[in-house]
């Protein structure tokens, strides 16, 4: 039924003469311009100039097909070619950028070494921004961002994180963003970045009696002290299971908080995952390795199921659990909720959640099919969902850069502003990742940084970023200065501007025109654009 509707929509959109007609079944229905605006708001980080018209021309169906099967963009790859670390394996990143401390190195030398050490992270952050602003594969960028938050890892963890996130972003997030959930889940569970972030890499089975005896003997011999020997045994007894990853795997990645699992399942899963680590250090491969000698032997019981081990290859337990979790009803429900929250509204209707969870389960966690189910739903296209979501600082900043056609040669200032707005990219301490609801971001007082960003961007005072001449020149010559506000409003707020915003724009225009006989687009334009980007309407998507 939804499919027929979409086809009808496509036909209507394909006919230029009818393109501007309303698809009205009742006054609650969105107009086609609104539909296009809505689609680009949710399935991209906002339109660039011309995107709306291009979508209306191409038709939603064709656009969606294309976005769900993205091809590598030579334009983007070219832009990113300056970042040498992007294509490197973790081992290559480590070898290239982690220079060992030299004896007697000067402060200058140490600073230089630390600058080099920071490079992979800087390049990662710059490249991420660049892709969001410039890639034609807009839906892919939305989904990369979605999984980035869902499977949160952070540079703030420190240490190896610095070297591991480059490959994480590429091999885990980008390879699987529009693939199958089971694949992305398995990829996260075997990537050193996740194992390190949630402390699984050092989780191990408690030592056996034999091992303890060896430790006692060796320490006693080495130190000549029986006490030291006993202390070493005590210490070894303490080495063991770390539950952190097991818990978050159930709570945040698959089933959702306290759904279907109990504390004993967390412990069992932690045991299953002992030995899931990576080989680090100067001689390491920096890749996943399963260490059988760290692994807790024996069958486990998890979620009421028996997980059989293989005494020579205990990794099969974890593989099996990941399978179980991917196929679990709880996971389908949870992922459906998160995707609908991201694409539809902060509190998606129950019917929609049920429908989407069903599609997810039936398709074996096929992400494009799941997205389609959302986009083909009547809930997605309802007026309740239209402009219903508040932009997070990241979404705000990126959408502002996109709609102004900005050219950025250095995102450092932008990244600093995101820090100020409490959403530093790839640096969310909390394993939950950045939240996606207005409740988390819309507080009294938060607007200050957004206004500052808006004004600075519009007036060319945002470091590293510039609005191209073409943007200002795009205002048709025949339009008088007092109507420039409409040109920019139409572009930046395709959903329309409320009375408050319209007043602000008029009043700014009037003040400007009162002081000059020769209105300049490059004088009034930035003022209008600054106000529009800081308007309440622009904070919504």
């Amino acid at each position, binding site marked *: 039924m939804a499919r027929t509707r979409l086809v009808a929509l496509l036909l209507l959109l394909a006919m230029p003469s009818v393109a501007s007609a309303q698809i009205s079944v009742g006054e609650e229905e969105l107009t086609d311009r609104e539909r296009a605006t809505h689609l680009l708001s949710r399935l991209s980080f906002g339109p660039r100039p011309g995107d709306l018209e291009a979508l209306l021309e191409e038709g939603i169906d064709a656009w969606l097909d294309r976005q769900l099967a993205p091809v590598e963009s030579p334009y983007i790859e070219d832009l990113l070619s300056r970042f040498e670390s992007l294509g490197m394996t973790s081992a290559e990143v480590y070898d290239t950028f982690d220079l060992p401390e030299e004896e007697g190195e000067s402060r200058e030398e140490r600073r230089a070494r630390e600058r080099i050490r920071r490079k992979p992270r800087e390049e990662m952050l710059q490249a991420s921004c660049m892709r969001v602003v410039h890639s034609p594969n807009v839906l892919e960028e939305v989904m990369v961002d979605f999984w980035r938050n869902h499977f949160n890892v952070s540079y703030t963890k420190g240490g190896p994180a610095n070297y591991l996130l480059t490959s994480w972003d590429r091999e885990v997030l980008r390879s699987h963003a529009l693939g199958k959930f089971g694949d992305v889940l398995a990829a996260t569970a075997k990537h050193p970045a996740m194992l390190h972030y949630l402390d699984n890499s050092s989780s191990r089975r408690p030592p056996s009696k034999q091992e303890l005896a060896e430790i006692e003997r060796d320490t006693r011999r080495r130190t000549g002290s029986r006490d030291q020997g006993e202390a070493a045994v005590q210490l070894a007894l303490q*080495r063991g299971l770390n539950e952190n990853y097991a818990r978050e795997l159930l709570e945040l990645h698959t089933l959702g908080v306290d759904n279907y699992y109990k504390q004993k399942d967390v412990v069992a899963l932690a045991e299953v995952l002992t030995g899931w680590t990576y080989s680090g250090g100067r001689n390491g491969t920096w890749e996943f390795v399963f260490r059988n000698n760290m692994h807790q032997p024996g069958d486990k019981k998890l979620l009421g199921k028996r997980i059989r081990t293989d005494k020579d290859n205990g990794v099969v337990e974890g593989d099996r659990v990941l399978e179980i979790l991917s196929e679990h009803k709880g996971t389908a429900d949870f992922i459906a909720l998160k995707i609908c929250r991201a694409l539809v509204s902060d509190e998606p209707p129950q019917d929609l959640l049920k429908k989407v969870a069903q599609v997810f389960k039936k398709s074996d966690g096929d992400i494009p099919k799941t997205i389609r189910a959302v986009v083909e739903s009547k809930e997605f296209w309802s007026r309740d969902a239209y402009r219903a979501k508040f932009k997070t600082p990241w979404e705000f900043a990126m959408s502002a850069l996109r709609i102004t056609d900005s050219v950025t040669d250095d995102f450092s200032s932008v990244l600093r502003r995101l820090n100020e707005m409490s959403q530093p990219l790839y640096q969310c301490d909390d394993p939950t990742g950045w939240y996606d609801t207005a409740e988390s971001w819309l507080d009294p007082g938060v607007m200050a940084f957004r206004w500052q960003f808006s004004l600075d961007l519009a007036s060319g005072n945002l470091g590293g970023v510039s609005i191209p001449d073409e943007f200002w020149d795009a205002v048709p010559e025949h339009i008088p200065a007092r109507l420039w506000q409409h040109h920019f409003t139409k572009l930046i707020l395709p959903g329309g501007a409320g009375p408050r915003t319209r007043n602000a724009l008029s009043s700014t225009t009037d003040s400007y025109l009162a002081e000059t006989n020769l209105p300049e687009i490059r004088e009034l334009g930035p003022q209008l654009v600054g106000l529009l980007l800081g308007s309440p309407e622009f904070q919504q998507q």
Partner: protein
Amino acid sequence: MNMQPTRRDLLRAGATAATLAASAPLVSASNLFAPSHPKTLITIYLRGGADWLNMLIPWKDRDYLAARPTLAIGEEQGVVPLDSKFALHPALRPLLPLWENKSFAPILCTGSPHGTRSHFDAQDFMERAAPGMRNIRSGWLNRYLTQTLGENESEFRALAMQPLLPRSMRGDFPAFAVPVGMNQKKSSTTLGQFEEFYGGDPMMMGSRNDEQVVQSGKMTIDTLRRYQEIVKQAGVRDAPEYPGGRFGDRMHTFATLIHAKCGFEVGALDYGGWDHHIQQGAEAGRHNQMLSVVSNGIAAFYKDLGSLSENVTLVVMTEFGRTVRENGNNGTDHGRASGMFVFGGGVRGGKTHGDWCGLESSALVDGRDLPVTTDFRDVMNAILEGTFDFEAEKGFFPEHKPGRLKLF
């Protein structure tokens, strides 16, 4: 009939106050508001589940020493005894004078009846003071502010010293999230640009979705301008040395606001990073460094307040404590009971409050965690009562009747 004020009502109330303030110079603002609440409550939330067992330490307990071979704080590590049973981590030594002058009351084994070990849920349940209940959206501090609406009209009544409100401050009452770090000069111009836009007639809303954004914007302008003027005066005041970094700065700002007598009543400050699963460190290391920041900040704060100290309550809390035994990575995992530190005039300091059950395996929850012997809601209730003479109405703590705690 819905007796709760809506956001629109609160905005109008705020608008009136702001209009009045706008026509009077700052100097007389304090007279204008003459807050009937010269008392202030500051909450400090240590996010991540701070290891309270290594902060308030059962220093002579053999079970403690045995459970933590590398993390235990004993005499060798410089433990600071408070009495025969409990001691402070050496990094908390700056709090000793407050213990000695009886304005520091540590509470043992506080926590939630709900056993979640999830950071998100535990914080959520605690800050909303509604363990296990997912339909309560307001924070406990916000409920206090809402129930006492009208008693203090100052726009600085409730401030969080960070760009986003903590959950405890969220709700119908418009608490202000200070955009710390914003360049003062620049922001003045910015605010000017958007003043007309977001200020003006609150009735002139755009679509339903814009309403909240506009309200947020309005508060940004009104409150931020005046806030910045007040804080500028900090340079004039002779303050003791606060620890460097954000925590110290923000404590310093709280003190400035209190000195300014501008009606500042409820403050909140987050300090994150306490989830020490690995290499927590004992008397050295990360946990230690962070404790040092907290204790020096609090000590400087009360020194700065001087005679105003007796009107200011400060409480330090966390979402849960950590496992009694250290784990295999010289760290600790999520536990149950933690503790709370309450400071201020009127508090029964110089002694520990709450019940201690010892650390024998049989006394521990699941054989691994400290049991909760005081519900955190009872502490919150005691603090509101003791600081503001506040009587929580029925349902303030949903599904809970707070026990009496002789904290004040």
